[in-house]
């Protein structure tokens, strides 16, 4: 998942960036509105965290411009003043949720996960496709009720695919959304990861949860379970 954070207070920004990276997110950060606006317009983001009180361009304005430009990713606003006027203004401008400073990191992460899930059309925190269930809260995956041990990268890959279950996800999209700028983007690595996931989720090769569409990408073809 690729997240952008626009926050002018350096300690807070660095803290959030570190925590998001720890959670396996690819993170872009901007200290001012104009840089943030540019990154949001150019990068394939999965979500953005925007502080409303930015020095050069107000957060509201950044959000408004993104939405005018048709950028679809969910936006979480951070506000220091808990006034409803600010919250309503932010949400009207196109944000999807708000968080009042100071906040607990868990709260931020939970809101972010919920927003990303919602964009994929999931309403529950557990994404279930056939026998596979992925709990975005505890970051655990079960296969027919049995816990499956996954590495951080494998989890990230599966989460991304499951959020878009039923849709084709290209390799480029995967690398763009899963990796930091400075990381190795060899597509062979991706193929190896998908192979490992398949072995772990489909040990007896009957389920075929991730199908490869030649030249187009991957797709989870299992039905989304609705509760």
């Amino acid at each position, binding site marked *: 998942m690729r997240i952008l954070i626009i926050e002018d207070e350096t300690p807070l920004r660095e803290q959030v960036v570190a925590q998001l990276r720890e959670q396996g997110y690819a993170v872009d950060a901007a200290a001012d509105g104009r840089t943030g606006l540019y990154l949001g317009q150019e990068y394939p983001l999965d979500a953005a965290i925007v502080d409303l009180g930015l020095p050069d361009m107000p957060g509201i304005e950044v959000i408004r411009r993104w939405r005018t430009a048709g950028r679809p990713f969910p936006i979480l606003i951070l506000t220091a003043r808990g006034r*409803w006027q600010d919250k*309503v203004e932010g*949400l*009207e401008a196109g944000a999807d949720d*708000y968080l*009042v400073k100071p906040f607990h990191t868990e*709260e931020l992460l939970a809101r972010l996960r919920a927003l990303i899930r919602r964009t994929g059309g999931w309403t529950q925190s557990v994404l279930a496709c056939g026998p596979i269930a992925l709990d975005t809260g505890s970051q655990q995956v079960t296969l027919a009720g049995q816990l499956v041990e996954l590495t951080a990268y494998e989890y990230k890959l599966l989460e991304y695919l499951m959020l878009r279950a039923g849709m084709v996800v290209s390799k480029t999209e995967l690398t763009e959304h899963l990796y930091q700028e400075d990381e190795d983007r060899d597509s062979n690595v991706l193929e190896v990861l998908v192979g490992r996931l398949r072995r772990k989720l489909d040990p007896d090769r009957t389920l075929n949860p991730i199908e490869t569409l030649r030249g187009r990408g991957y797709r989870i073809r299992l039905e989304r379970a609705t509760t």
Partner: protein
Amino acid sequence: MVSLNRRLLVAASLVLAAFLGLTGLTLDRAFRDSAVEAVQDRLQVQVYMLLGAVNMDAFNRLTLPQALPEARFSTPDSGLYADVMDGQGTLVWHSASLLGRALPFFPAIRSPGDTQFAALESADATPLFMLAFTVSWEITPSQYRLYTFRVAETQTDFSKQIWSFRRSLWGWLAAASAVLLAVQGLILRWSLKPLRRVAAEVTDIEAGQRTELGSDYPEELQPLTANLNALIRQGRSHLERYRNALGDLAHSLKTPLAVLRGALDRHPPPEELRQTLAEQVERMNRTVDYQLQRAAAAGRIALSAPLPVAPIAHKILDSLAKVYAERMLDLSCEVGPATMFYGDEGDLLEILGNLADNACKWGRRRVAVRAYLTQHGGRAELVVEVEDDGPGIPAEQAPLLLNRGQRADPTVAGHGIGLAVVRDLVEEVYYGRLDISQGRLGGALMRARLRFQAGG
């Protein structure tokens, strides 16, 4: 901007100039006309005089005596001339004053009894008034002859008269203008005096020598001064609220700070220190939130138009629908288009936002927002009701909940402070009440009654 004084002065001066100018022109024209008429009458009299002096000689020729009653006819270049022509246009007599000159040709001989009058120029370009009168003279009882008598006078006297009239006319008009302008200036000074007084009093207020504008203003200015006073009072009450909030804030931060300092001094085990730290940080955060939101309340704003409640309620519900998208809540809003709020939009957003947010947190599927206007002791009262289908709040817990910062369920973030802020806004800023009861949907029903001061 052009000053009021100058505007009025310029406008009034233009009107005055136009009026006096037209008056002057009219009087001038009227005087001239009557002066010309007087000349004509005078010349007519001269003609009759000449007619009276006419004699017929033995050959039935018309003659006039050497000495006429009007001496100017006999004095050369006197400015008064006369001649007589017969029916064929032949000059039969001319006055001695003409002395070799001739009157300009005028007019053609007409029928007897005709008078003609005109302003003409003589051969040497002297402007003249000339009157011609044609008579039919009985020579014998059966023989008549036509004669035309012409009398002319130079315009010198006439012009002198006109110019002297003009001089005095325009002189008086100018004097009148000067007096009127001066009076007008005085009237302006007198009329604008209250405005200067407002400016002076505002300056005094800025300097801190006064608290309000005085009351004995002309009635046209009273709405202005009353509204200015309302603004000043509002500013002062805001300041007061900020000051109180700051005082409360400092005060309530001292306790957690003291706890923290105490904890540091005691050198407790890291785990205990950590917990104390977390508790006190949370406490400080809530204190800051609460006091700041309280201070931000604007209250009844002087000069503000009533706000329709419905769009504000929809704003809040749209926002909450977004935030609680996953919960698929059924948010309903029953607010009539004529339901008005007489205060600051931010305050109403705060009240509705906190109440509806709470209802969304506690409700299972349904949240309803209602607002309507009633009367309370002759004043408008806006009732805002928010209810949900959650577990509800037991009657004995309700007063606890309304106390500042009290949380009914510490696991749901933000509960408590929001309600306390709403209560303060409702009770302290809008002189109303907030109460909690059981709603029709089965959960809690929060009812805020907002009362407005007279006139709003």
